[in-house]
């Protein structure tokens, strides 16, 4: 009889001995932390700042593993980047796992290892968590939720309200990488040359802020991509945005992927890209600070806030035409027409 790979059972989520074994061997071993190890009902923490940012996100990506990352890395970076976008230094994360009965232990260990590596890279501690197991067929392998606490400084904060016509829009690098990689894996298209850009961005953001740049607004361009971030920022406001198509950085394989399948790269998900809106006099300095950072080598100024048409986003196309960049309706699908 062959060896069956060890699997997660319902009993691993029931709170008894198997649960303790799972937490001990699969979680604590990979995520050593003095607070986490106490396994108290809540983590007791000390912060340096009086003002904090607090965020949560759930991760349901399929497939669990893709070129450039996996659900674990995503779960850390996504939440860290939501804090970074507010100008908050990420400090602590919670980690909740909802595991489908039958998931291979080795898969879980690989994901947790990835979480540990990403947390180290991001400089955050995982201080509390939870594990549940749901019946086979009810869970899609693995779902993760992370909540994050970050420390805010004393500045005016980052919000679309601060944006004024004339402000410049920057992005720290090539767009569409994550969306292309995941879709290619998920649909088993076997398109080589793609990899997710999943990365923690606080260091990058900090370097721009430390350079003294007057940044008005930041957002990580995840689901819905660059176009969605800008649409959300402009909605209902007294300004709009113009984006220059030829200024938007993109890797050739991602462009090719979009051509082949009829996707619009401006709406594709990113997991290591921050959109920043900065005062025009600081745009060059912000660009230089981004480019000096390893995660910002391909940074570019891609557009600006304009007084009209307010609330809308327009694209100046590569052939010097113009079109509106509207809100997405739903997910893009590969198309043949």
């Amino acid at each position: 009889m062959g060896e069956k790979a060890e699997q997660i059972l319902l009993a691993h989520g029931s709170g008894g001995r198997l649960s303790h074994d799972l937490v001990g061997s699969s979680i604590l071993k990979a995520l050593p932390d003095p607070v986490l190890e106490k396994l108290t009902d809540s983590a007791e923490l000390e912060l340096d700042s009086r003002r904090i940012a607090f965020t949560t996100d759930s991760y349901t990506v399929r497939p669990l593993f893709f070129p450039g990352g996996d659900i674990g890395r995503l779960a850390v970076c996504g939440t860290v980047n939501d804090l970074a976008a507010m100008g908050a230094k990420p400090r602590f994360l919670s980690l909740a796992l909802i595991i489908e009965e039958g998931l291979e232990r080795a898969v879980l260990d690989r994901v947790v290892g990835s979480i540990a590596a990403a947390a180290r890279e991001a400089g955050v501690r995982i201080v509390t968590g939870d594990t549940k197991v749901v019946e086979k067929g009810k869970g899609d392998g693995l779902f993760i939720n992370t909540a994050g606490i970050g420390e805010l400084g004393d500045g005016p904060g980052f919000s679309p309200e601060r944006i004024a016509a004339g402000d410049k829009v920057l992005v720290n690098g090539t767009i569409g990488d994550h969306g292309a990689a995941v879709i290619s894996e998920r649909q088993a298209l076997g398109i080589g040359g793609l990899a997710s850009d999943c990365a923690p961005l606080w260091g990058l953001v900090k370097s721009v802020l430390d350079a003294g740049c007057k940044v008005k607004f930041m957002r990580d361009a995840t689901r819905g991509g660059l176009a969605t971030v800008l649409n959300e920022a402009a909605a209902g406001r007294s300004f709009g945005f113009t984006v220059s198509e030829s200024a938007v950085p993109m890797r050739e394989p991602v462009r090719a992927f979009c051509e082949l399948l009829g996707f619009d790269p401006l709406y594709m998900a990113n997991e290591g890209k921050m959109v920043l809106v900065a005062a025009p006099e600081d745009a060059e300095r912000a660009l230089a600070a981004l480019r000096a950072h390893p995660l910002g080598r391909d940074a570019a100024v891609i557009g600006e806030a304009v007084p009209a048409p307010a609330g809308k986003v327009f694209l100046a196309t590569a052939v010097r035409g113009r079109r509106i960049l509207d809100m997405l309706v739903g997910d893009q699908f590969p198309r043949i027409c």
Partner: protein
Amino acid sequence: MCLAVPMELMSIQGELGIVELGGARTEVRLTLLEDPQVGDFVIVHAGFAIQKLDREQAEKDLALMAEVFGDGTPGGR
């Protein structure tokens, strides 16, 4: 009604081929082509190569276009 892109045929395995555009590679079916060769550029639609790109014609057209662009006088040529 037809999204199709030109891709370079990098290798052939029977009816299948590996094609590349901008560093992205994928597999296509060459079933609809007469005698495809490695190095051909093919028009790819829904996983099938539907025609070979006429490279000589493309280069001629591009040269003509460069002439149009290169001509400084409005309405020239």
